[in-house]
């Protein structure tokens, strides 16, 4: 591999180990923070939707709290958010640096966004379906798990795709706490050092990740749209 690449991407070959390491770091950051953000964002999004004034269990307090949480955390520039959160990160993850230290800030940067996306996705459900479930005596939990979520899978898949790609973008900031990753790698070598081969390969690699995410999203959408 390296020898094949040598003539085309000499710099990449020079920093090959770091390159491989950065891929692993990106995958670690992305998958861990992605899974956590997905669960939390879905949870918050659903709670947000159902506690709206015309939701199935209106609750002004909870609804406003989520709204404020989302807005506040979307307001803080991510790099500042990372710095702000260091003590909390250390409490939660045991360390504030490296991949481990990046997960919590990434989650914090991703969840508010995903929450909004879920709001967008769930808001497109026909209210008649909620009504039908109510009429059948389905509990609120049942409405969430048996109507809201299954009926909006295509929309949630779209939201998740968008969010996942945004999260991939965020992981590029993982470098701020020494978590490395392709984003940081390409910043340090491709961008700051003008190693064009590294720049191009890394961007193609990120594009490849993006395409995979997109592909998975499209497949889910296709399979679940009837």
């Amino acid at each position, binding site marked *: 591999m390296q020898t094949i690449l040598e003539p085309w991407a000499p710099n990449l070959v*020079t*920093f090959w180990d*770091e390159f491989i390491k950065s891929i692993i770091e990106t995958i670690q950051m992305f998958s861990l923070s992605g899974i956590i953000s997905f669960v939390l964002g879905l949870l918050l999004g659903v709670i947000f939707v159902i506690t709206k004034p015309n939701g199935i269990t209106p609750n002004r307090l909870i609804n406003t709290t989520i709204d404020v949480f989302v807005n506040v955390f979307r307001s803080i520039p991510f*790099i500042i958010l*990372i*710095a702000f959160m*260091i003590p909390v990160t*250390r409490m939660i993850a045991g*360390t*504030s*640096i*490296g991949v481990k*230290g990046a997960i919590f800030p990434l989650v914090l940067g991703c969840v508010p966004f995903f929450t909004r996306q879920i709001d967008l996705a769930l808001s497109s459900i026909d209210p008649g379906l909620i009504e039908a479930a109510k009429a059948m005596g389905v509990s609120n939990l049942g409405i969430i798990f048996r109507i809201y979520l299954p009926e909006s899978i295509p929309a949630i898949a779209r939201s998740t795709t968008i969010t996942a790609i945004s999260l991939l973008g965020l992981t590029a*900031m993982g*470098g*701020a*706490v*020494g978590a*490395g990753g392709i984003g*940081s790698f390409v*910043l*340090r*070598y491709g*961008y*700051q*050092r*003008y190693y064009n081969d590294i720049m191009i390969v890394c961007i193609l690699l990120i594009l490849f990740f993006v395409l995979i995410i997109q592909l998975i999203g499209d497949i889910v959408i296709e399979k679940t749209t009837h």
Partner: protein
Amino acid sequence: QDTVDVKIGLTGSDSKVWNYIKEEAAKEGINLELLYFDSYPLPNRALAEKEIDINAFQHHIYLEKEIEEFDYDITVIGETVFAPLAFYSEKITDLSEVKDGDIVAIPDDTTNGGRALKLLETHGFIEIDPAAELTPTINDITNYLVDIEIIELAATNIPATLPDVTFAAVNSGVASNAGFTVDQALEIEEATAGENPYINVIVVRTEDKDNEVYNRLVELYQTDEVKEIIAEESNGTSVPAWE
């Protein structure tokens, strides 16, 4: 043979040097883990809070400012390189051509920005409030001797935006990465080795000041082999700061 783990916080991309040192250290049973931070304020904090053991990314001024601000108990155990700031231009060949209304680009980070302002002062474009010491901001400019417009932007973007400004202050690392050579520079920061506040340093927590392993790393850095790597990497824009 027992190995000892050391975490070092770095920034930017002088990794060739550190990769070399890492290899060398490994031979002596020192397992060096390189952690690259993409932002300046964190490595000192991580060091102070014992997340890492050692860092090497800053110069004296920056370190002093940080210590002053946060009371970090950290200290210098060795010097690395001096990376002088220089003025470059695509429009003029001499600073004397600068006239009123011209634009100068300077880095937007605290230390390099301050350095650039100092350099502008040195060359008689502006006057700076002495109270600002070594890290002035645009705000500390008390007088414009030439009516230039100062614009701050990311250091790494300065070479690319050179056509849009009259001249610009460029970090040596950035300049060498962009393919600029020392002789293209209009002016270069004076390099007075030994006492220059802009010399980069290796820092540890004060309690570890005498740690053998860390000091060994300094020794590994201050070798001729490293000197060679630096010369090759920086086209001569960085100068080793040890004899």
